């Protein structure tokens, strides 16, 4: 059951973003511009078909991570986190509240990007559209939690931005987005096994390219859900330390 305080926080996050119209527009427009440029850069549609699932997984991870990470950090830099931590809400309420609030926007973003990729960039796929969305939702959940967790280590926006090359870039190169993991040296293949995007890319490719179902990619789904749960608990634990610093 979701505690009411988490819903209060989620409602406030949504209210805040809706009132910030420029951010709302950017949330929708930026991923579309990026996908269009990437789509146009592939002359062969078969290559784009192959890379599209990995790109969708990467976009979901990147934008959800960034949006949540920066917003959560702002909560601390503007002092409202200190106020929340001195109130009766629990740390888990705060993390779950943020997760729910940002999840709505990340979901909206993903819906638009997936539909744009399929219908405008004309990427071919085999699996069910609803199964693609469900899988993306799991990636978003993991990414939102990752954003919350990483932001507890940053003291300001500059530091948060420095985490992007550390958290996102290696995953793009090590998780099979550009070339298959099997072609990498053994030790990097091991490293890829602990990175969530590996499971996001594998699962989404299996659904979109091989027409598999969510049951078939159950292992990848379970790993991503497990990652999201563990990282949200760790984020809640690290929250007090970071709010007080």
């Amino acid at each position, binding site marked *: 059951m979701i505690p009411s305080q988490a819903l209060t926080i989620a409602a406030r996050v949504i209210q805040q973003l809706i*009132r910030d119209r420029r951010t709302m527009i950017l949330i929708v427009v930026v991923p579309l511009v990026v996908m269009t440029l990437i789509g146009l850069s592939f002359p062969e549609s078969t290559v784009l078909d192959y890379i599209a699932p990995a790109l969708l997984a990467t976009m979901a991870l990147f934008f959800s991570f960034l949006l949540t990470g920066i917003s959560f950090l702002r909560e601390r830099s503007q002092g409202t986190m200190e106020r929340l931590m001195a109130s009766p809400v629990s740390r888990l309420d705060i993390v779950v509240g943020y997760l729910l609030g940002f999840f709505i926007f990340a979901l909206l973003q993903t819906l638009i990007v997936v539909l744009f990729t399929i219908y405008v960039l004309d990427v071919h796929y085999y699996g069910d559209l609803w199964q693609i969305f469900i899988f993306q939702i799991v990636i978003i959940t993991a990414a939102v939690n990752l954003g919350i967790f990483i932001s507890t280590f940053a003291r300001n926006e500059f530091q948060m931005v420095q985490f992007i090359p550390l958290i996102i870039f290696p995953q793009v190169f090590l998780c099979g987005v550009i070339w298959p993991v099997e072609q990498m040296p053994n030790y990097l293949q091991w490293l890829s096994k602990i990175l969530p995007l590996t499971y996001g890319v594998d699962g989404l490719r299996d659904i979109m390219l091989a027409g598999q179902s969510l049951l078939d990619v159950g292992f990848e789904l379970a790993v991503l859900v497990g990652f999201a749960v563990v990282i949200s608990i760790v984020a809640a634990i690290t929250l007090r330390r970071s709010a007080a610093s």
Partner: protein
Amino acid sequence: MVKRRLARLAVEVNKASFSYNNLKAIDELSLKVPNSISFGLLGPNGAGKTTLIRLLVGLLKPKSGSVRILGQTPSRKTAHLIGYMPQLHSLYAELSVIQNVDFFARIYQLSDKHQRAQHVEEAIKLVDLWQRRKDSVLRLSGGMKQRVSLACAIVHNPPLLFLDEPTVGLDPELRVTFWEHFTNLTRQGVTIIISSHTMDDAAHCDRLAFMRDGKVIAQGTPLELQQATGKPSATLEDAFLYFIHREDRSDS
């Protein structure tokens, strides 16, 4: 504001210490604050005022010694008994005045819609911002933001208020208005702990603690502290300097 049954002391600190890494911010500090008064923590920047308030609201835990508010150790269970106004404005800039105050009313579990609306209206009217209730906080002046911040701290009618430098950046007229609010609140039974480094604030407090290097170097009513200097015309500033010099002499 509803009067509640409270412990005899609003705040009781017993030989509490706290350090940030190797920097000692609070050094075996002891303090007792009775109920229903305004109590000023006075001292220069770095004296440990904010750290003490953070210990009292439960954001930090003392490394040694003990801290109690209303007879209990600060925790999530005591959080609804306190109102906290941090040094920063600590508001959601994109939200309106009423949305900010309503959010904190919900956070403090004022779940009845009608009752919450009443509390929110009272708090905003108290800080004289009802006409601006629909404006984004972003569009308000510094002094108005301070007032919204105060409204957020008092919306759930807590018996104990911690205000960290609430009058910083306020013009003299607004400062007077703030102090009228504070005096009204103490008359209604609320205990207010205020940190400040201005003697103007000090003069308004019922009792004061002069702080320096994480310690309380003197405490009493403003008059008692002035009289301790032995000079009939001594101001609170003179009194503060008197205790600092006395502390320096005893150290050397």
